[in-house]
């Protein structure tokens, strides 16, 4: 046995503690809690940009909900003394053509758009992952039924359905609106996930899990989805931006967020024509949207690197093998 232990003496990284004692936890040393969750968290926290992204998102939320409390204005109120005035002490971000306070409106829009963007992205990517992986992993009738559903959703004009459902949605509030948005964003990703699942399913580590009696759903969540984490994270990151913009598009046609209520999308849309003459109308909303999406993508990158053991030194390994 000693002979074999010696075999391992010069592994990359080098040993950090001698093997001693008897209790498993002691012998495992620092590795005792080395489950994937903790390792991922540790690696994520090591990535400064990603942590900064989380902080920025939290700050945006705090700003969106807390800042209006310090402003004398309401998002519906109008100031008859200031039409289209530039930023000043009275109106921090200036006012609109009818005297609405841009700061308060932007914060109001931020509240909605942040939640809609983040949630719609998570819901649509999650749905895509589950449906795609289930179709690919189970195959046979599950595959046919789910892919039939995907095809159906792809040919249905999502815009039309949302339009038809909008009176009903209006009563239910933004949460249902977000769900509907997500419901029309997942199909293409689901197809890609299915394709990747088909190849992963035949990999030996998936077979190994099956042969040790692991249940199909646990295999999907433990082995299959983590191995396509990069795809899913990139997809979710892109979806945040597109959900915010899709909401704008719908609002434009009178569905979704309706005046006098505002969202970042509607603010950008309304302010963009005056970008050169009165930039304060859309710049705050636009910059906040960019900041938000940027923060999300940093978090996404950090999460991807934390989940992928090759992330930091992948390139080096490749060359060595070549």
């Amino acid at each position, binding site marked *: 046995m000693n002979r074999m232990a010696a075999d391992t003496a010069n592994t990359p990284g080098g040993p950090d503690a001698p093997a001693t004692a008897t209790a498993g936890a002691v012998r*495992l040393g620092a590795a005792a809690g080395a489950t994937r969750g903790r*390792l991922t968290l540790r690696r994520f926290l090591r990535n400064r940009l990603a942590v900064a992204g989380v902080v920025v998102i939290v700050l945006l939320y705090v700003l969106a909900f807390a800042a209006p409390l310090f402003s004398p204005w309401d998002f519906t109120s109008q100031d008859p003394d200031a039409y289209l005035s530039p930023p000043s002490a009275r109106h921090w971000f200036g006012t609109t053509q009818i005297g609405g306070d841009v700061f308060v409106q932007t914060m109001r829009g931020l509240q909605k758009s942040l939640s809609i963007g983040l949630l719609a992205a998570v819901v649509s990517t999650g749905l895509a992952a589950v449906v795609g992986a289930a179709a690919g992993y189970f195959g046979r009738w599950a595959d046919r039924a789910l892919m039939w559903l995907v095809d159906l959703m792809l040919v249905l004009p999502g815009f039309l359905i949302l339009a038809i459902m909008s009176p009903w949605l209006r009563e239910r509030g933004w949460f249902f609106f977000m769900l509907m948005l997500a419901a029309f964003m997942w199909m293409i990703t689901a197809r890609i996930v299915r394709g990747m699942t088909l190849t992963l399913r035949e990999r030996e580590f998936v077979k190994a899990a099956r042969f040790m009696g692991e249940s199909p759903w646990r295999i999907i969540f433990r082995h299959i989805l983590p191995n396509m984490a990069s795809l899913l994270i990139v997809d979710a990151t892109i979806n945040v931006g597109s959900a915010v913009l899709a909401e704008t598009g719908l609002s434009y046609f009178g569905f979704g967020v309706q005046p006098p209520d505002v969202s970042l999308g509607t603010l950008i849309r309304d302010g963009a024509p005056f970008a050169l003459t009165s930039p304060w109308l859309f710049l705050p909303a636009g910059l906040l949207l960019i900041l938000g999406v940027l923060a999300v993508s940093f978090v996404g990158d950090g999460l991807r690197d934390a989940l992928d053991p090759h992330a930091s030194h992948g390139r080096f390994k490749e*060359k060595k093998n070549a």
Partner: protein
Amino acid sequence: MTTAEAAAAPDERPDADPVLRVDDLQVSFPSEAGRVHAVRGLSYHVDRGEVLGIVGESGSGKSVSSLAVMGLLPAQARVSGSIRFAGRELIGLSDRELSGIRGRRIAMVFQDPLSALTPVHTVGDQVAEALLVHGGGKLSTKDATARAVELLDLVGIPNAAARARAFPHEFSGGMRQRVVIAIAIANNPDLIIADEPTTALDVTVQAQVLEVLRTAQEVTGAGIAIITHDLGVVAGFADRLMVMYAGRAVETGPVREIYSAPRMPYTLGLLGSIPRVDVAEKQPLVPIEGQPPSLSELPPGCPFAPRCPLAVDACRAAEPPLVPVTGTGGVAHRAACHRSEELAGDRSAEETAVQVFGAELVEPTDLATVPRARRQTVLRVDGLVKHYPLTRGTLLRRRVGTVRAVDGVSFDIVRGETLGLVGESGCGKTTTLMEILSLAKPTAGTISVLGSTVESLGRAEAKRIRRDLQVVFQDPTAALDPRLPVFDIIAEPLRVHGFDRPHIRRRVADLLELVGLRPEFAARYPAEFSGGQRQRIGIARALALEPKLVVLDEPVSALDVSIQAGVINLLDELKAKLSLSYLFVAHDLAVVRHVADRVAVMYLGKIVEIGDAPSVFGAPRHPYTRALLSAVPVPDPVVERRRERIILTGDLPSPADPPSGCRFRTRCFTFAALPEDRRVLCVEREPVLDAAADHAAACHYPRDSTSLQRV
């Protein structure tokens, strides 16, 4: 003669000059961890008509050095030194100038014949292309096509004129490699570089391809540099040998000399780590501990010193030069070792290796002495059949045939026994495994694990059975989830079967120690380990639930030879310690002879011979078994050159359309030698295997029967 050739001609001195002379070749690549010095001062030469074997582990620089000769290294590689081909310096030539030499005067045979051929052109066109490219416009397309057919015929492709119009995917692996060789010899090259030409092939096909390479050499008179990690392959084929380690040659010399009296501990270890198919009693295998050093920052001293049992202070201080050994060798035999003199002696290489590296055999347990009949049956497979439907059409699927992947296989395994299942790829051994592991009802026949028949199992019972039945896969990289840390990988079976956290922690630490790894490794990802270590992790996972039967699907075939021995020893040791039973599937008969107690030989979905390992290997009865055994190369040039080879013709028939009667008759040399009236039996009646017998063969005319002797 082209102008380029004419210009080069004055340089070329007649035969005395070697075809290829490499002097102090250095190749390095940039990488994030500093420059990787893949080749560090390599010098060798290949004479006309000579076969040089280049042997080394992966990462030893053997492929990189030959790519440098071909001028095929990526642009960021820094190459220095001298490569003289027929007296002409190749380093510094432009790509255009090299292209005139490549393919015409230096040819290359790659490892993977599938990716070496273009899938969208017929093989005839591809051979003709090699001729036309270097023909300088003098050769007409028609002539090239005719010559291509000749070449294909030369490398032994049956019915070459018709087959030339077939596409690569219509050929088997062995046939594709023949096509690649045909392309290589198309322009009568002076040098053929063969990079692991048989590694991807079955033993029977490997023997055929080596034979073709030999023919190719005789026809062209070229020098051959054959790169391999398998010392067996080159024993019978090469004239001289060069052993590489960490980017340098550590020993060179005539084949016979190196095999009988190696003077460098690394060569010694390599020789000692190979199981021999021709030796009856079990000999200990020598594992070389550790792994090759990183080539980006080599410490001073001999690069092998950290793994060398003979290392002394001098070895760590300075790297030994490659110098002629004193004593028997003469100048041809050189070794790079400070202590090479002490390795001289009268003992055989294996004995010296065992002594130097301190390998020992695992003591057989008490269980091994209990007769088979009295031991518990762990697995019984009875008449197992697995057929796959062949369907055509997408909308309306029609069944157009049946692939008879497994067609009536019966065997059993008792406690503490290893059954080796061998056969060529495509013979159904993996399907048999998967049928056993899936615990689903087979097309026909029964599988019972520890006495319970699998088809009658409920979910809970199936899960219980899975505890006793575990698997180790061939490719340790694919078998471990790259996204999970080692702790989670080994803990997975325990978690599935409902153990609590403290227990899992203790067990994971125990298991890591059991397979010779350190418990702290639990926090690392599989990518941070070497192949051998990954396979150990796979074994630890399989043993987590204390199974009774472990199914090993080619567990060492993806590993380097020196690592392979360590894993085989570990498996041997664990079997004795935990009284495990193994179902060991492998295509390497030497490994099977080393580990197995019983052997079953499969051919086209059926077992053709089964019995105790000593009797099957010692006195094989079925012609297929004899052919398989004779195809296995032996790492001993003396034995290898004396041995009579049975080379099977052709490839495995399609399992969708097996021959009538005896399935092996289409490739059987016994059948071919039979008079017409006695062949009828083979064509019409399928031979039956008496599975109950100690040693049985499914053949009408087995070797030991009197009938054969009269033939």
